[in-house]
């Protein structure tokens, strides 16, 4: 990500930004005028130099498709929306990171925990299964039992996948 090599535009994919702009959340990417307000206020950029939202936007516009999609950086956004609130150009930056992650997922680059979460939701309907033991604890705390059924979610996901084919 922080390579000091000169960017070889002959090897860049200039249609990448157009691709991103058609993904939900990526619509406003071309509005960016590179002011850096996003990175200046980013709590993650302050904590970890691997993540700089302004750099990622520039890389997308320069067509560095693989470098963006393969790198850890897009997965470090905490989704706090600080940048999105402050962007003077209305680039929905947190949503844009989400768009990049969805493209990366389709290319097979999503970190393992995300697959695990999706499978859990399709199987259980929630992230933390509520079993008899949990329900006993809930009843003891005078809280109602919870039984979640994920059947309808599996049907919705199946129909969405059919649409993609």
């Amino acid at each position: 990500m922080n390579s000091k090599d000169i960017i070889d535009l002959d090897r860049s994919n200039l249609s990448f930004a157009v691709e991103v702009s058609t993904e939900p959340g990526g619509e406003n990417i071309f509005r960016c005028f590179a002011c850096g307000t996003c990175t200046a206020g980013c709590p993650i950029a302050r904590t970890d130099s691997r993540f700089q939202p302004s750099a990622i936007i520039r890389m997308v516009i320069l067509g560095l498709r693989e470098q963006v999609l393969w790198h850890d950086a897009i997965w470090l956004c905490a989704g706090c929306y600080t940048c999105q609130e402050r962007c003077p150009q209305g680039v929905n930056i947190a949503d844009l990171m989400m768009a990049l992650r969805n493209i990366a997922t389709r290319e097979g680059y999503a970190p393992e925990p995300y697959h695990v979460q999706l499978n859990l939701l399709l199987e259980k309907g929630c992230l933390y299964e509520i079993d008899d033991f949990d329900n006993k604890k809930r009843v003891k705390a005078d809280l109602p039992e919870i039984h979640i059924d994920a059947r309808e979610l599996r049907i919705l996901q199946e129909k969405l996948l059919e649409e993609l084919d």
Partner: protein
Amino acid sequence: MKRALFLGCTVPVRARNYEMAARQTAALLGIEFIDIPGFTCCGFPVKSNAYTFSQMMSLRNLALAEEKDLEIVVLCSACTSMLAEANHKFRKSAQYRDHVNALLRKINRSYSGTVRIKHFSRMLLEDVGIDTLRKHITFDLGNISLMPHYGCHYLKPSEIHGEFDSPEDPKTLDMLIEVTGAKTVDMMGRKHCCGGALLASDNRLTYRLAAEKLHMASTSNADALCLVCPFCGVVYDDNQKLIENELEQIYQIPVLYYPQILGLAFGLDPKHLGFKLNKVKTKTFLSKLYGDMADE
């Protein structure tokens, strides 16, 4: 006042103290919570890798509330913003509405976009009102100080929350705390992100981010952090010990959910407000209010 209570994933398993206190305080205020059995996760956890599906998860939950003609009240800030965002997008585009309903028909459901979604704290302010809260207060919390933690999704993205509170200079949680008589500690970092979204993929980054806030709280005169989101609670309360180990620091800051504070001010027993479920012990905090008689 009837509302569908949306619990999401975290509250019923990892923040039962929050849920207990919310149900207790709501009952005292005459709010009737309806538990809808078909509710699932809001979809937020898979927004990054299955965006369209995540939106459908939210919209299906909204369809269930609409079937019962109920507004939704939410305890989790991430669920609040997820459901509100899906609703916002649904209302904006006729083409999208048709697509969503074509999918919902496959599970014999439909949605027309009528459901309103509010965070419980927002409901207390807007639908119950500060004056009504004040009338129920029987126990003065005047000798405690709290550091409000707004977190992110309670306020942002502001576009989907409408006219509520300023994401840059928020006041609503301070107002809710002050009506109980407790003092608020006003300092930088009240809007900090807990980093919870990265806990599964890069927990050390979460710890470093969370440590900033815990450090501020422990070096201020705050007796506790005051939260409105269960995932912030997972980070600051459940993980506080691990953060202390990682950063080689000691904070020992109690982490309380706002309804626990409100419940104390209503004169409710801490036992019924889930104080025993708090991970960072609250004995010192409670003895400041009740003297050494407090057994937790």
